[in-house]
């Protein structure tokens, strides 16, 4: 199926997402206020001689800002709805479509990311202007390549983590309890609360670091990390592990699926 067709599927999803315009806008406003609160909190801390290891004050501020925008790309996903669809049996309708399921999921996901990323740019611009932040200032071709690869790696890693958790719905009806715990764990170890390398370099090699930390770090510090090839290689290794785990869980899950709810 051509990409134009996938674009149309994504576009239908976009229309569904924005069917309630007011709710959509207010949810975005809530995110913006959230960002202001976090940013001003760190701004206040840094004003009072608080410093993070390996980061200048400007880089720290930049890190949190970019981490938010990166989150809008990588962490924004509608794949979480798949678990509920499995439990309610509504996924049956998708099983009947003559398309590959992962392609359908991917087109939804890309549509969702595009919406969120575009809007987050509007959040970003005033901050960049008022705090004189310049994310791509010292970027070379290699840095750009690393940045794009880390973004793709992060998106795919997170998507497969989400898919793994949603596949649990084939086995557990109470999979949300596991997911809630995981989300707390993820927000901590993906570097949303602090740059991981300011605490321990070991944390930076966990699979969750790829979900937020590496691309945010690159934008904040505008320099390639040492051992960048190794970082990418480890990232792809984790991705492969997650992909294989998801495939195994999904395939076995399909055989257990009973399509309740009718």
């Amino acid at each position, binding site marked *: *199926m051509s990409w134009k*067709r996938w674009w*149309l*599927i994504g576009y*239908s999803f976009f*229309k*569904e997402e924005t*069917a*309630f315009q007011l709710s959509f806008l207010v949810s975005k406003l809530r995110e913006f206020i959230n960002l202001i609160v976090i940013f001003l909190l760190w701004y206040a801390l840094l004003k009072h001689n608080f410093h993070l290891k390996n980061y200048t004050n400007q880089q720290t501020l930049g890190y949190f800002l970019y981490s938010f925008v990166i989150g809008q790309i990588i962490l924004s996903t509608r794949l979480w709805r798949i678990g509920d669809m499995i439990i309610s*049996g*509504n996924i*049956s*309708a998708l*099983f*009947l*479509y*003559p*398309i590959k399921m992962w392609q359908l999921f991917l087109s939804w996901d890309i549509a969702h990311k595009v919406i969120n990323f575009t809007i987050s740019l509007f959040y970003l611009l005033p901050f960049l202007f008022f705090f004189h932040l310049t994310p791509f200032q010292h970027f070379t071709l290699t840095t750009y390549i690393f940045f794009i690869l880390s973004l793709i790696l992060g998106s795919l890693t997170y998507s497969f983590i989400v898919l793994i958790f949603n596949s649990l719905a084939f086995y557990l009806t109470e999979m949300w309890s596991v997911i809630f715990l995981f989300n707390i764990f993820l927000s901590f170890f993906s570097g949303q609360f602090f740059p991981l390398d300011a605490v321990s370099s070991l944390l930076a090699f966990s699979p969750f670091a790829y979900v937020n930390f590496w691309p945010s770090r690159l934008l904040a510090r505008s320099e390639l990390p040492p051992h960048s090839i190794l970082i990418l290689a480890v990232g792809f290794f984790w991705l492969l592990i997650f992909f294989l785990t998801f495939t195994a869980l999904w395939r076995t899950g*399909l*055989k257990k*699926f*009973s*399509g309740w*709810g*009718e």
Partner: protein
Amino acid sequence: MPKDKVIEVRHLSKSYTSRERPSGIKGLFKWGKKKKKAIFNDFNLSLDGQQVIGLIGPNGAGKTTLLKLLSGIIYPDQGKIKVLGYRPQKRQKSFLRQLGFLMGNKSHLWWNLPPIDSFQMLKVIYQIEENAFNDTLTKFSRFLEVDHLLFKPVRQLSLGERMRCQLIAAFLHLPKLVFLDEPTLALDIISQEKIRKFICYYQKEYQATIIVTSHYLKDILTTAQEVVILNNGQLVFQGNKDKLVSLTGHQREIKVEFFSPTKRGKLQEYQPYLKKLNDSQAMFLVPKEKIVDLTKFLTTHFSITDLTIKEMEIETVIKEFFKREP
């Protein structure tokens, strides 16, 4: 026109496992016992194509499970299934393109968008040519009288309107084989009639095979040529609709509520037709030609507070069927 075998099921077994928890506070602290229920055990079925087939049976007989197995949504525990020459669980694109499935509350329509958006997406998914899509959509939406509703969000449509739009979604890619699971459930008489007409029209126009499950005998009698009856996962009847009609279809159910409790003896004249009598309520199964006589008899000899005449329910048909064909 020669008919091909479109469905072949051999030695099929399927069971479900569920947990049953006690109700109330006790249930909060228990996982519940695992319970396995066999739906099919060594089940065989072979169906010819290019006709409407009525699949009937009481609740829990395995009708919906069978359709899910035939469409590849769920996997059998054992046995072989071939549909249109494919193994459905492989979910090959060429198979899925020929299949349509209307599932009661599993909608193909996006809840917050107008039906036209869902149809556009199905056009893309099924790779339907623009002209063919427009022609089919116009034809079907006019037939089902929903052409004025295509741009109204699905959530604002009535149940009947929604079901008719869902029907379009299931047929839009002109499938060769269609499964309709309770397409008229809880709909008003007008919507039921439109859906029945559409099923007959589509089958004739496109020489398709349509399998319909329904709780309304009228759905089956007006649309199907062949009938399959399931009971407890067993095939209890498969054959021409006329055979079922000759056994049961010309009868009607008459329910009467008497002013005061009535004894069986008083109804002696119509004893062979009396199926139930509880104090002041009675139920008769009578041939059509006896309806007038019976109602006259009842209204003349008894004080009656309520009287209803309706078609036999599927459950009654099956009971009667078993009595006559043990």
